């Protein structure tokens, strides 16, 4: 317990130092706080519900053998898409500097999506061959 209190105290001090830095050095505090709040709202109110809806509404409607592959690939592609927003949007691209953001990012992203779909397909076939069937037989048409 003493160790935990000490660790906690170190954390509180580090956090307070950060808060002090924010108040002292950032004269543009309001947009910073808006970004912080916006980030939380965007995650808790949009991204997380979307992921849950996908898990609850979409996955169970897929053929049984495709569910695991689809869930895994959706996680990988979904997270890629989240962190790739700035490059896909070309945020920061400027005419005077062709060396920045100098790829066709939609092509790269599309390539990853195609590769992901191929993985789902092959993995599903392999699962079917291995005899993976819905044990509850709730969806009987997955073969």
């Amino acid at each position, binding site marked *: 317990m003493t160790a935990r209190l000490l660790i906690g105290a170190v954390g509180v001090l580090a956090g307070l130092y*950060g808060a002090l830095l924010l108040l002292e050095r950032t004269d543009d505090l309001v947009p910073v706080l808006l970004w912080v709040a916006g980030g939380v709202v965007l995650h808790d109110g949009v991204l997380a519900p979307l992921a849950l809806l996908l898990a609850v509404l979409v996955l169970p409607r897929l053929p049984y053998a495709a569910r695991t592959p689809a869930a895994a690939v959706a996680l990988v592609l979904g997270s890629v898409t989240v962190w790739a927003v700035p490059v896909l949007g070309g945020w920061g691209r400027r005419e005077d500097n062709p060396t920045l953001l100098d790829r066709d990012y939609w092509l790269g992203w599309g390539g990853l999506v195609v590769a992901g779909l191929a993985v789902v397909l092959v993995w599903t076939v392999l699962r079917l061959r291995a005899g993976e069937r819905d044990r509850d037989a709730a969806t009987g048409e997955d073969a």
Partner: protein
Amino acid sequence: MSPADVRVPREDDFTSRLHSPAVASRVGLWLGISFAVCFLTGLVSHWAQTTDPLVPFPTSPAWGYRFTQGLHVVTGYVCVPLLLVKLWTVYPKLFGRPPRALPALTLELLERASIGVLVGASVFQLATGLVNVTQWYPPFSFRPAHYAGAWIAIGALVVHVAVKLPTIRAALGRDVDDTALDRPEAVAEGSLSRRGLLRTTGVAAGVAVLATAGATVPWLRRVSVLAVRTGEGPQGLPVNRSAQAAGVLGLADAPDYTLVLVHAGREVTLTRDDLLALPQHEETLPIACVEGWSASATWTGVRMVDLLAQVDRPSGADVVVRSLQTRGAFATTTLQAQFVEDDRTLLALAVNGETLDLDHGFPCRVIAPNRPGVLQTKWVTRLEVAT
């Protein structure tokens, strides 16, 4: 849960057995390590950019900043899937019912506040980092906000670990499929097993590395389809700020350009031809930017220490470097004594065998080992020995 059933969910509505401390603590461990890597490499970068640090920033190894900042940015990308999965596993707690008794309620509210700070700061750090890498600037000053946010995030993380330590130890000490620590409702088998989720998260992290690290690891360039740079550019080198963006067109390429060396009231004025007539040295050094991209190049120019001997720079004196640039925060930089005195530090006139491109800092630029790119000042017009 059906679509018609529209109400705020309760914690026990979430029945997947993936919502378990067994999963959260494992992903949390990877995420904690990744955050620590980002924090420490971020401190290194902050140190490297501090004008007058207590401990001088070392000049060796020459690839040091290239490594730490590349690691900082790639680890930041890795944090995205880790954070998303971590938050997803604990998402039901957002809807947990607070206890009634006052002491327990106070503790719960304190913990929730600390989690709120942790989540807010974490998302903020990743979001600001991701957009800064593409040079898209939010409506606030990036560096101080990202630096303050780092301390808040790491502080809240340490508090979180202290609070959760017994759960973390219990969870990590058991098999991942053990259910002893689970909520009684969290028993539903989903599309992914716990091991499947952990492996998939690892794959998502690996994809983030492969898809972005080519901006700093040359042999990954062809694989890194989402990296911010291909590594191509004039003279085989990318450009961070162009001559046009820096507002030096017409100044840097003016025929009457001169470099002025200043020390204690003495001034020595040199043309570019004068600089070319001095002994030239060749060094292979990387340009390593705060945005995480880097590229190595062979630079030719005058050794900084030899050049400043013309105005009798005393040993140990820093040098203020002034650029022609009329826009941007780094028109004036300080080249600390240890960099001035390192033989590899050049006032470069050529790169990869060609006269510097205007976008690479023609007529001359600073190139020093183990330095952030923003401090490798281009279009240099004045070197003042600090006294």
